[in-house]
């Protein structure tokens, strides 16, 4: 059966395609464009939404009285398909017009303006009037959370968010509610998001074709801080930003724009422009020490990474009995915020109260994370404002900066030196690779000749590798996507897990595929290109191991003392709390 080919006719032209294709796949191969809306196929990330609910991709199949959705119709030998008949075109248009008749027309001021797939479709079909008008949905805007805004009036019930939330992330927060015209998507009992076990991974936002699910817009807060003369506003950018931001300025996916980004941030008026990578190197210092401590002193194994706030929230809600397995390390940007308001404040002689730390993150969960009280230092948030890659691009555009023409600039110091290890934090497999680059040398006292652990790289949802250290095999597991994480956690719970260390990232692909990144619009190649770019950036770095970062060494020598030591514990570690599952 494998490699079997099927012959069919599309718009009069015969084509031979693999048997497992859908009509949509076959048409695409034949060069026939069929508009789609609810359909989403992130093939390599294993996220496929095939609800066939929007009825936009309807085509005529000879011998069938009804039209068929191209996205969900398997092909047969000898099938005769027409995509360009009046019947098909009218049905497509009707579906779009009906959706528009129940959709706000505030496109000009919509957060998804020019990014909205419904808008693009309406444009493509040249919809100039909405024939059937009538009642439109009026639901309450859910602004309860720190991370996402849910505006069901803009929902077109493509159900992609449900697929992401339930099938990929297995969080089970979003589901269709009510019925008929009043059908909507929300948590059980339509609870406010804040009252649910939502991890704010943002994968629902990443796949939402309209502005029904968006991040909480914190741009105005940043502008306010920048315009406040009493504030010393510093910014840090996560590793995954530099390989994605360019996409929002018409650059190819995978363009590395680190220098331009720093330049733009300076132009926006930040007092200091730093790199979260520094925080990542610091995380490695702590996490590698913690791992060694656990390995050598019979501590809880496996140790799980804790950089990802959505993942942390997931374990608290879904596996409350396992909250002792993740590393106690705060995430890199929180560590960075802490150091900014302590070490850096001291060093630059600035009142920490006056410092505003802004994080540019590929993630919307980071927004909620920054507000977690247990991460605060003396009642002050270590990170004050979190904005996403998309929000940063919006600020750059608003400020009239011609991003593409910007010169390359370097980060500020003393918290600006970074390593190749920290830059790969942005991809699945990167955190554990960075940990191993340091742990290996610390455990063996030998120089690691090849810092690239190929066996830890890739896109498979669950990967594993064994690294021999001092004659002992260290078993490493990697999962990205919370559904995959769940599998590894089930094994830990049942005592079957053989791993010593596990890296988990909530988003498929890791932070490069984060909920705050530029919309991939269903093209998973974009995410892969970002990954390649991160590894390239790593390769270009002179120093590729965190413990060899001079400014990190200086930080410990002059301020923190020992990694995993007393002060480090106070400043850089946290605890987790079992939570209810709703």
């Amino acid at each position, binding site marked *: 059966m494998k490699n079997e080919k099927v012959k069919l006719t599309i718009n009069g032209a015969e084509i031979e395609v693999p048997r497992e294709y859908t009509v949509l796949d076959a048409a695409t191969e034949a060069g026939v464009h069929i508009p789609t809306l609810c359909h989403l196929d992130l093939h390599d990330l294993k996220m496929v939404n*095939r*609800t*066939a*609910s*929007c*009825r*936009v991709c*309807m085509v005529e199949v000879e011998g069938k*009285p*009804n*039209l068929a*959705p191209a996205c*969900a*119709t*398997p092909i047969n030998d000898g099938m005769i398909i027409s995509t360009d008949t009046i*019947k098909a075109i*009218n*049905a497509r248009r*009707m*579906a779009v017009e*009906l*959706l528009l*008749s*129940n959709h706000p027309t505030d496109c000009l001021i919509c957060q998804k303006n020019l990014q909205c797939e419904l808008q693009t479709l309406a444009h493509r079909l040249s919809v100039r009037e909405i*024939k*059937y008008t*009538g*009642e439109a949905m009026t639901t309450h805007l859910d602004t309860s959370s720190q991370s996402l805004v849910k505006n069901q009036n803009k929902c*077109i*019930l493509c*159900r992609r968010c449900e697929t992401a939330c339930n099938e990929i992330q297995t969080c089970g927060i979003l*589901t*269709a509610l*009510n*019925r*008929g*015209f*009043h*059908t909507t998507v929300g948590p059980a009992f339509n609870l406010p998001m804040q009252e649910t076990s939502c991890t704010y991974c943002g994968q629902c936002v990443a796949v939402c074709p309209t502005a029904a699910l968006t991040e909480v817009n914190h741009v105005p807060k940043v502008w306010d801080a920048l315009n406040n003369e009493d504030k010393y506003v510093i910014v840090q950018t996560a590793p995954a930003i530099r390989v994605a931001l360019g996409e929002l300025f018409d650059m190819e996916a995978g363009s590395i724009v680190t220098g331009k980004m720093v330049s733009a941030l300076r132009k926006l008026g930040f007092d200091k422009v730093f790199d979260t990578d520094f925080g990542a190197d610091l995380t490695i210092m702590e996490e590698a020490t913690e791992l060694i401590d656990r390995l050598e002193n019979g501590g809880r194994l496996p140790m799980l990474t804790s950089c990802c706030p959505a993942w942390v929230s997931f374990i608290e809600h879904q596996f409350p009995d396992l909250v002792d397995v993740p590393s106690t390390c705060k995430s890199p940007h929180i560590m960075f915020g802490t150091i900014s308001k302590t070490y850096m404040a001291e060093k630059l002689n600035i009142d920490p109260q006056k410092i505003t730390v802004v994080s540019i993150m590929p993630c919307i969960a980071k927004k909620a994370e920054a507000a977690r009280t247990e991460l605060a230092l003396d009642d002050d948030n270590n990170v004050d404002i979190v904005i996403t890659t998309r929000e940063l691009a919006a600020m750059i555009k608003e400020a009239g900066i011609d991003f593409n023409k910007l010169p390359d600039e370097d980060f500020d110091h003393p918290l600006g030196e970074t390593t190749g290890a920290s830059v790969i934090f942005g991809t699945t497999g990167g955190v554990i690779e960075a940990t191993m680059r340091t742990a290996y040398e610390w455990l063996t006292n030998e120089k690691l000749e090849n810092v690239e652990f190929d066996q830890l790289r890739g896109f498979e949802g669950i990967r594993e590798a064994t690294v021999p250290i001092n004659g002992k095999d260290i078993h490493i597991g990697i999962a990205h996507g919370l559904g995959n994480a769940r599998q590894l956690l089930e094994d830990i719970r049942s005592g079957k897990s053989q791993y010593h260390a596990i890296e988990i990232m909530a988003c498929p692909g890791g932070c490069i595929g984060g909920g705050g990144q530029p919309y991939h619009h269903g093209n998973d190649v974009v995410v892969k290109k970002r990954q390649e770019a991160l590894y390239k950036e790593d390769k270009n770095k002179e120093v590729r191991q965190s413990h060899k970062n001079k400014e990190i060494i200086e930080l410990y020598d002059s301020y923190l003392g020992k990694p995993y030591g007393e002060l480090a514990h106070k400043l850089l570690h946290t605890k987790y709390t079992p939570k209810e599952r709703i």
Partner: protein
Amino acid sequence: MKQYRSHILVCAGTGCQSQEGHEIIEELKKQIEKANFHNEIQVVKTGCFGFCEKGPIIKILPENVFYIEVKPSDAKEIVEEHIIKGRRVQRLLYEEPNIHERLEQQKDMPFYKKQVRIALRNCGLIDPENIKEYIAEDGYMALGKVLTEMSQEEVIQLVRDSELRGRGGGGFSTGFKWELTYRNKDDQKYIVCNADEGDPGAFMDRSILEGDPHSVLEAMAIGAYAIGANKGFVYIRAEYPLAIQRLKIAMEQAKEYGFLGRNIFGTNFHFDVEIKYGAGAFVCGEETALINSMEGGRGEPNAKPPFPAESGFWNKPTCVNNVETYANIPPIILKGPKWFKQIGSEKSKGTKVFALAGKVNNVGLIEVPMGITLREVIFDIGGGIRNGRKFKAVQTGGPSGGCLTEALLDNPIDYENLTRIGSMMGSGGMIVMDEDDCMVNIAKFYLEFTEEESCGKCTPCRIGNKRLHEILIKITEGKGTKQDLEDLKKLGEMIKISSLCGLGQSSPNPVLSTLKYFYDEYLQHVENKHCPSGVCAALKKHEIVEENCVGCTLCARVCPVDCISGKVKEVHNIDQERCINCGACKEACKFNAIAN
């Protein structure tokens, strides 16, 4: 075993029970006891007789006398007259309206004359709570035959040969469905009984489960054997408590007798049935929605393929058949496909149960051979239109069926034909309308139902039906235009061909069929702002009939908006501009001087 000389069968279906059916049984028992005949006369509660119009119904065997509209207070007379003295209680016999004669026997009554009862064969005959009575009527004999004499392939071939088609609405070949599920090899397969009778007007599935639950269990076991399943589910709406109760009793008894469980009939075949409750959503009658609901998910359909035969309940091959379909299986096995095929029309074999309702004289549950005409059903079985009014339309197939006119009444009833003329077989609902019904309003009524029952998954059904409904509201409020009629047609047709499941694919039928057959009535609404049937309140116009008005002033006094003027003993006048058409004047007028 006790031998009785006479049996009093009392309908214990939901309809008759709600009219003191239970009390009738108690009272009859009391009277028999009192007369000291309790060792000779047995009171049996049975399933539905179908003639619900005349319920509660009792039948006395062996003389086969049929009494209608029985009340508990009649028990005494029945026992004293019929049982003791052997005389008929004349006033409780059915009076044939045409010949004005009281008829004793079912077979002579026009309501039953043209009926052929296969699926309903045991309803109104046996005690559904007593497995022995089912066995006495050849119950579980078909299962025995299948398990001990036939291979899986032979069973499938037999059912295929019978040309039995799904009675739930789709009309898909039952045998072929079994074959598809049989062909998908898997270590676990399921057979499901769809008892989610969603059409509010239809109650054949409920009646079968209430009156003859074993026939469904037996057929499920036969189907399970044929497809290779060992687990069955009955998906039934929780709002059918009596059917559930009888089904549970039947399941227990079948287990006790070894017809369910392990090694049935001493063979290697094991089969168990479980009940799954539905919350009563119309869309859950669609098999993929039903399976989603069974799994605890939202009751909404999936795109097909994959069909349940390939990937159904928990992604295992699953065969879903409807209650009435199952009820046909045991007789087909026992009497053979030839016998079954001789009943019915060319492409639709056997019988179909219809829930005959609306403005017809004999409301009830009927089972007729396929190919019978609509006219025979409505006028012969149904006894024509109530109160001597004129027939206007008949709607078949439930809320998403089409409305058919007088001119179409000679069409034979079968799957293809009903679809061809713009309606469908559907669940078997049949609602008759007379000249007092406004067809625009009827279309609006059905759309209101389907709009609400849409699961909301696909765009055409979710928003399209809403828009259709809104346009219909507009027309009935006198705000419609001719353009609206075109829009209705265009939108309706699009919804039909592009919706995800059968609900959306048929929901515009009431609109499209009434537009087609009653276009003038729509035109009256939009062009003249007039509702010919006087149903649409907003289009009603109250006027004084001058020759009848005596100037009593009563209308002017009751008018809540003071829009009626006139002096005492002079003809009054209604200010149409201000009139809100509440009808208070018409109601108050003693001289029939107000028309609308």
